[in-house]
């Protein structure tokens, strides 16, 4: 079980590294584009669409660690008024709901990615295919599921905050 927790945490952290690398790339690419466009009249073609795609990596790949750290907004002051057993039941129920949501998103995102691949959907300027983004978001959704499975394990172990 420790191995599963370790794997989920490391995977989330690895995805976060990819996410902030993408964020830094957005900043550097955009600044370079602004300078080249404004001062040398030589913009980087397709910056707009590359930034959009990098944005998907930033947000999609950053989400599992956000869930791991519980940094998404939730309201627990009512749940905390329940006895421990009641809190555990509510928390397990909400984690199961979230797992179902992300399994659904992941599964349908793969289908959507396949649709984009088959129809050869690409960006307007650079002609970059969209399907890897959909597949990336699907992977992120499945890692989210792992994070919430870990939450359930933590609840059973009495370690869930």
């Amino acid at each position, binding site marked *: 079980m420790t191995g599963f927790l370790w794997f989920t945490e490391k995977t989330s952290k690895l995805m976060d590294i990819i996410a902030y690398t993408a*964020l830094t790339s957005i*900043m550097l690419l*955009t*600044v370079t584009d602004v300078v080249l466009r404004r001062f040398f009249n030589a913009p980087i073609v397709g910056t707009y669409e590359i930034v959009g795609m990098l*944005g998907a990596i930033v*947000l999609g790949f*950053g989400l599992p660690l956000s869930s791991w750290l519980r940094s*998404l907004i939730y309201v627990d002051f009512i749940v905390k008024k329940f006895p421990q057993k009641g809190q555990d039941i509510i*928390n397990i129920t909400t984690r199961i709901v979230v797992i179902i949501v992300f399994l659904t998103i992941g599964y349908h*995102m793969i289908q959507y990615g396949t649709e984009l691949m088959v129809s050869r959907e690409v960006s307007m300027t650079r002609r970059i295919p969209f399907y890897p983004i959909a597949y990336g978001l699907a992977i992120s959704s499945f890692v989210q599921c792992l994070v919430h499975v870990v939450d359930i394990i933590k609840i059973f172990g009495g370690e869930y905050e």
Partner: protein
Amino acid sequence: MSEVEYGLIGLAVVLGMFLTGIELAFAMIVVGVVGFGTLISWDAALSLLVKDIFNVFNSYSFTVIPLFVLMGQVSFNAGIAKRLFDFAHKFVGHIPGGLAMATVVGATTFKAICGSSPATAATFASVAVPEMDRYGYGRKLSTGIVASVGTLGVLLPPSVTLIIYGIITDSSIARLFLAGIFPGLIIAFLFVCVIFGWCKIDPKIGPVSPKSTWVERFKTLPDVLVVGVIFVLIIGGILYGFFTPSEAGSVGTFLVLLLAIFKKDINFQGYIKSASESIRTAGMVLSLIAGSTVLGHFIAITKIPLITADWLVSLNQPAWVIVAMISIIYLVGGSFIDDIAFMILATPIFYPAILKLGYDPIWFGMLVAITVMVGVIIPPMAVVVFIVSKITKTPLSVVYSGVYPFLISLFVGWVLVFLFPGIATFLPNLLMK
């Protein structure tokens, strides 16, 4: 059952789910999909779900949020706020309550490059409160003002809250940024007035500190000037179409980062921490936007926003009654979940009413922003107060009692913007024809 009844039940279920401890964004997704699936079709609901998430995440416009948050985080981790506080301290520290006033001036200047309320409150809680302790300030005043100035980031550009409002209502972010300047400065001035009045009534709460020489004062000016230049560049750049808001976020972050590296205020680890923190905040906001987009499709087919608009118009009440009603709903709703989350949830419902009543969306955005400012410092969900209490190790009750006098400033600010919309609309109308 009618579509409206489905919609009302859906909204009740969302609010109920919020209280179970589930992440708010996920609750909105669940209700949005189930509602749309029940009313239209399950295939359409699931297809819409993935497309909504794909489009929100793969969107150029939304990258503005992590970029401006990153600029704030770099400023926060580079300790720029401390220099700005030192500048204000040198100029006004020698008058009664001067260090608390310096906190207002320092935080207002810091807001020019940091749009995050929690980051500002956290910074000034660690920078200004120990300094005020050193000169014997009462904790009520020191923690109360630090928590209150944290809220200025909601109104002063580059405010993340205003960016979100702009995205939800399709309003110009540049106009919103400009509209926030005067109300933000007025509220900052009102904070200073409250400090002045409080120290007059109880001089022990804000004793004077030694007067600085003019040489000492002038030595602190360059840091403020650099921040001023970056601010003007960002806002001016957006305003005159030199770059888009996302580009402004990138350029601003890059300049702040260069400044921090040049001054050896930030190292690689500091930057990584800033980037990772930005992703946490951006993920929090954008997951809410994705959730509200999914929920929004369901709410749209129930026609609740249109019916709400018609109902509010049919009330035949004066403008102030309707806007006050909407603001109270924002305040109460935001107090029990989260102010930004409630704004994302409620704005699509009330916004059509605002348009139908012929109100200026930019003006309404300012009123919403001031309401959010109140929401983040009143119980039970007072995020900024929690942060200040934790960092300064002060009981929550003391911070709250310190915050209450400053609520007067926010209330007066709200009333002024309501009565004189020009306070908000003058600058955008002047500079953006």
